[in-house]
């Protein structure tokens, strides 16, 4: 039963999209013969390559920011004593479950030219003209970090929480100072958490098409928007499928790296 289900809704769509990526299209048919490699050749066109590059750059910046913001936070949280720990965790989970659309919309209201951020900055006399933040890559980056930060914090938290305290004490006893302990013991031990969090942030950052759509400008087209465009605007399904396949391949590579560096019990934290 479950195998049928998975074949029908897991495997079959992926097979279809792979097949579709090798076909062509015309004005009367969405997908049609003959078989061709043209779609993949077209993606290698410098214009599309630029979008890949931009997506990588923005998603990478987003992942790095999330890591920098999230690591100390997860560390502090993991070291807090119970009852407070559960309460703080709950407070972190709540935004995780609110609709990301609503959260993006909130960011939009925050950074508008006549929004509250500009209002505060102008009242404080830091700027005299409103900052034109909305409809730029900065806005997209801010919204992405805001939306995806919890995805970084949760795996980090669970991997730091599982750290064996005795190892840290042993390092201390052997004469390591705080910085060395952190760099040589804590960071390597929480590496699975870092990797898991990075995957959970990096991939959605490239594909959440509604965030660049709402907050980005003309120069904020990411991979997700490209796929959305190819499917729903230019109606070039084969090309869109090929882009999707490339994205999936990228995911599998990242997953492979993660698999290599983690143990089975760590993988739980991806949940």
């Amino acid at each position, binding site marked *: 039963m479950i195998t049928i289900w998975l074949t029908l809704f897991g495997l079959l*769509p*992926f097979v279809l999209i792979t097949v579709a990526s090798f076909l062509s299209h015309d004005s009367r048919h969405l997908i049609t013969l003959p078989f061709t490699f043209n779609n993949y050749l077209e993606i290698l066109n410098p214009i599309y390559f630029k979008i890949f590059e931009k997506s990588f750059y923005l998603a990478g910046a987003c992942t790095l920011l999330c890591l920098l913001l999230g690591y100390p*936070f997860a560390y502090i949280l993991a070291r807090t004593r119970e009852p407070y720990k559960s309460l703080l965790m709950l407070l*972190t989970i709540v935004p995780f479950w609110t*609709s990301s659309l609503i959260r*993006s919309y909130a960011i939009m209201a925050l950074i508008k030219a006549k929004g509250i951020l500009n209002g505060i900055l102008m009242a404080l006399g830091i700027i005299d003209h409103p900052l034109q933040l909305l409809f730029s890559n900065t806005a997209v980056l801010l919204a992405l970090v805001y939306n995806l930060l919890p995805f970084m914090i949760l795996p980090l938290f669970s991997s730091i929480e599982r750290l064996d305290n005795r190892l840290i004490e042993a390092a201390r006893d052997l004469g390591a100072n705080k910085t060395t302990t952190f760099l040589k013991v804590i960071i390597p031990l929480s590496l699975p958490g870092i990797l898991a969090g990075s995957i959970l942030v990096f991939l959605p950052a490239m594909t959440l098409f509604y965030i660049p759509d709402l907050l980005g400008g003309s120069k904020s087209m990411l991979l997700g928007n490209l796929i959305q465009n190819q499917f729903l605007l230019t109606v070039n399904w084969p090309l869109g499928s090929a882009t999707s396949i490339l994205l999936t391949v990228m*995911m599998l590579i990242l997953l492979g790296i993660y698999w290599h560096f983690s143990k089975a019990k760590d993988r739980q934290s991806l949940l």
Partner: protein
Amino acid sequence: MKRLLAPTYVTFIYCFFYLPILILVFYSFNDAHYSLIWRGFTTAWYQLLITDQDLWLSAIHSVFLGFCAATFATSIGAVTASSLFRYRFYGRKILHTSIFVLLLSPDIVLGTALLIMYTLANLPLGFFALLLSHIAFCLPFVVLTLFSRMKSLDKNIFEAARDLGATDTTIFFKIIIPLLWPAILSSWLLSFTLSLDDVVISYFVSGPEFEILPLKIYSLAKLGVKPEINALCSVMFVVTLIIVMTSQFILRKKN
């Protein structure tokens, strides 16, 4: 000074999490049509929200869809997880891995792939297309949540039950479900919220006769800031807050 650093940092992050939403709630009481400058307190947007039939209809659609998707995903997921846990069969590893990959595959890929499939199968985009897609993306979450909970169960219970003559069905209904019900309930709630919040997959597989709330909010948001959406988002925030709190409460109580 050093002792204050950690609490300050934590507070800063929480502010980052909650301030934008609070600002949104604040603006939902603002008496201005387009701009975001404060022009006095009003509940007019909430009144408008109550009388907006289209929004209510799409909200009902979303809840109905979420209810169906969560119920089916949880029941199918419970069976899958228990058979993954109890039987060693050919392809078990592959199944486990593929669920994992499905869980991590980008929503947009799943959405476009399902769109292609429905088009080829001639299934009209609408309620059933949405329902099947939502079950498809909720299922991996349910299976993995339940599976990891089952690992903490004592395998001897099943042996004992079988020795006492229980059938597979009896074991499922009398042992697995009672032992796992908090996990089942929380994965139902998880699926429900996932379904309620999904934009990316629904965007590709929805049709004209069955509009759902997230897509309605998306199209409204694309048309620019409207105070009515602020009110709607505030209401939705409070609803999600209640659901999350409830599910956490249930889980914690049982632990």
